[in-house]
């Protein structure tokens, strides 16, 4: 089972569903706002932004799990797989909206967008980097891949960098949001770089 968490024996069985429900709140809100017509005349634009932002926040959370675990706070890392799958859900919705609203399911137009717009290309590349991680998130896949599973799942680092580039290239005149995300990603990836060099010594 993909969502079976093995080390939660000390916690109640209700913790996982609650965390799952919390992660689905933004999606539920989007669906509610869409259905009740609160998203204004261009709902796609708003939903593109929301799904993309929740994907980025999800990336931040899964990257935060390891540094926290090293300091003894293991709570977040217990839900890392679930968070990873959910952030992939948000990013996949983001991509689907783009194809539905902006490209109109035209293969030719999609190819053109990918080739001619670097921000579309890097966003798509980030999704491509995350897809194999979602597909190999089951216990079975993890056992089957053994040591290579760990190596494969380092793809989350380039995915985070690509996702951030995607955000930066989209900014028209105010880069504030991109700067904040950039700093957070830099801290979380920097922690790994530092650990890598300290470990190698």
């Amino acid at each position, binding site marked *: 089972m993909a969502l079976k968490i093995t080390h939660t024996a000390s916690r109640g069985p209700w913790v996982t569903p609650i965390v799952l429900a919390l992660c689905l709140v933004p999606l539920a809100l989007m669906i509610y706002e869409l259905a009740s017509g609160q998203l204004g*005349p*261009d709902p796609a634009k708003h939903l593109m932004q929301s799904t993309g932002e929740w994907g980025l926040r999800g990336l931040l959370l899964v990257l935060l799990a390891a540094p926290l675990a090293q300091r003894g706070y293991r709570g977040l890392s217990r839900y890392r797989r679930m968070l990873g799958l959910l952030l992939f859900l948000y990013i996949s919705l983001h991509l689907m909206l783009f194809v*539905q*609203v902006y490209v109109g399911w035209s293969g030719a137009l999609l190819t053109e*967008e990918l080739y001619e717009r670097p921000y579309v290309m890097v966003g798509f590349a980030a999704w491509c980097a995350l897809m194999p991680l979602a597909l190999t998130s089951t216990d079975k896949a993890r056992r089957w891949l053994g040591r290579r599973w760990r190596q494969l799942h380092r793809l989350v680092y380039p995915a985070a960098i690509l996702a951030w580039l995607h955000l930066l290239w989209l900014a028209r005149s*105010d*880069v504030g949001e991109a700067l904040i995300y950039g700093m957070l990603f830099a801290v979380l990836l920097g922690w790994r770089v530092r650990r890598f060099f300290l470990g190698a010594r």
Partner: protein
Amino acid sequence: MKKRIYTDPIIAPSEITPEAVFLKRRDIIKSVAGLASATAIDAAAGVGHDAEAPLSFTADPDQSLIALRTPYEAVTSYNNFYEFGTDKSDPARHAHAMTTDPWTVKVGGLVEKPGELHLEDLLSGFELQERIYRFRCVEAWSMVVPWIGFPLSELLARFAPRSEGRFVEFKTLHRPSEMRGTRSFTSIIDWPYREGLRMDEAMHPLTLMAVGVYGKTLPNQNGAPLRLVVPWKYGFKSIKSIVEINVTDKQPATSWQQLQPTEYGFYANVNPEVDHPRWSQRFERRLPSSIFKPNRVSTLLFNGYAEQVAGLYEGMDLRQYY
């Protein structure tokens, strides 16, 4: 209804609007001269914005776009007005902080009679007409908007542009205490917002100074009390809440062009063949749009006004002068 007397400003022969276009404009005015000034039907039917006052105006003789009009609610809630924030909903939320009464527009530069226009002059000093125009944003969404206003040429005529005046420069109000977007530390726009037109573009009969929308005065988020509307250009050319107009002999620096010259040109004519570097301009989402019915329509050259304005750019490479 009083018959309009049109006085030509002093301009160089090369800048005079082609006769055919000009005559057509006269026809349009004649055809509606008999009509009683339309009362603000839309305003009566409309949406509860108390601050916006009904206007008296002549209905647009061309009603072909009337069924496609973007609802008032959408026109006034989905705006780019970065002085109040970069989100589309920011202007509707924060623009009420802007004081629009009293309001003064300074008109100067290369004109014989520099001077000022006040709010009263704008609302009652010109004969107001309705113009139902397509409005195409450079971000690939679009609307159809029933503006109320008067041709920019009539405004300029009062100040008698000199013949060496080849461009017109516009500036938006810059009042940080009332405009939270201009206080953002991460914004890279050099305020005040500036736009410009070539003199022949400014004198073109389609170029409108809008004071109202849907039969009422403009809400602040739409650029109250006076904004430009150039329907064949991307929306960012249609500068809002204007406080200064200058006639110049050099092409004025414009805000978006200064910011990203590779992405935004001085001309900014709507052109499906010339992509924005980051997205295609071949289609637009005609608002209101929805997820399941995105309402994607093909973008038209000069936003569908090629017949009237293509002559202005004869012989110009539209890829170079984007």
